[in-house]
């Protein structure tokens, strides 16, 4: 083998090795470039998907707002109308009950029995033996005549021998009494109006149910 041939072989090997190195550099760079672009595309897809989700949520929220504005307004207004209608019916029921109580108070015999019960209830609630009794103008006139009978009937009902004193100042009530102890530290409001007001707080739910079932 000549020296010239040896030189050519060496040169060929050098060229081949260099070209292989160059190809390897390109292959590596292309792979890195592809990975970079692929990663960016994947991230872009993730952003797009996330945006779609957010847009759907925003659209749903906008549509919910549209619905709430229309339906919510009507519902609120209707509920208010229902409440007012119910309140009106309640007021009529209580007014009729009040009227019936007023009428009942004119039946002196039955009313006296109720008056005894109302007084007895107050006497037991306050405690003691001496009480001042306040009543309407009409009842005061009757009580002045029947005070002893009332004391006796209350005694019979409660077992307590009571002394009742009439307050000459009439109260505004369709029936019932206000009882207080002698020094006025304990007062028991047992008028029809007071009892109706107390009943109202207990009965509103029952009445509402009764109306719903109507």
């Amino acid at each position, binding site marked *: 083998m000549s020296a010239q041939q040896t030189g050519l072989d060496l040169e060929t090997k050098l060229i081949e090795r260099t070209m292989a190195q160059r190809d390897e550099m390109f292959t590596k760079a292309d792979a890195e470039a592809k990975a970079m*672009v692929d990663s960016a595309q994947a991230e872009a897809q993730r*952003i797009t998907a996330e945006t779609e989700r957010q847009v759907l949520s*925003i659209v749903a929220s*906008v549509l919910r707002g549209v619905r709430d504005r*229309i339906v919510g307004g*009507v519902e609120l207004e209707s509920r208010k109308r229902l409440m007012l209608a119910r309140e009106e019916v309640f007021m009529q029921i209580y007014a009729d*009950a009040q009227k019936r109580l007023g009428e009942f108070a004119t039946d002196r015999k039955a009313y006296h029995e109720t008056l005894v019960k109302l007084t007895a209830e107050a006497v037991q609630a306050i405690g003691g033996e001496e009480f001042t009794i306040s009543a309407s103008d009409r009842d005061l006139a009757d009580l002045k005549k029947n005070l002893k009978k009332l004391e006796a009937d209350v005694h019979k009902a409660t077992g307590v021998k009571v002394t009742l004193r009439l307050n000459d100042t009439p109260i505004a009530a369709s029936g019932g009494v206000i009882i207080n102890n002698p020094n006025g530290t304990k007062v028991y409001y047992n008028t029809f109006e007071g009892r109706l007001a107390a*009943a109202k707080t207990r009965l509103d739910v029952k009445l509402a149910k009764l109306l719903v079932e109507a």
Partner: protein
Amino acid sequence: MEVKKVLSVGKRLQAILEEAERESQQRLADAKRRSDEILTKARAEAEEKKAKAQRGAGIDDLIKAEEARARKEAEKIRADYGQRIEAITKLPRKKHDAAVELVLKEAMPK
């Protein structure tokens, strides 16, 4: 003479490798620029879509359909409440009397 020739080839090959290195770096820089463009575009489109949705733009038809649906629902609610109100205000006498009796029973002493 032969050594000189080999050195000359070596220089040329070194130049080829240097050029290849520059070319590789250029390819990476191009990829980086393209990646940045892809991401910038995706982010800009996302912001635009969200802003449009928040303005309600592009969903006019959906909004109109929802309004129509809501009005229908509202009418039904109004009618339902109307029936309930009518039932209450036109309470049968018997029921009314029963309610009054209930109140009296509660108000009168036992």
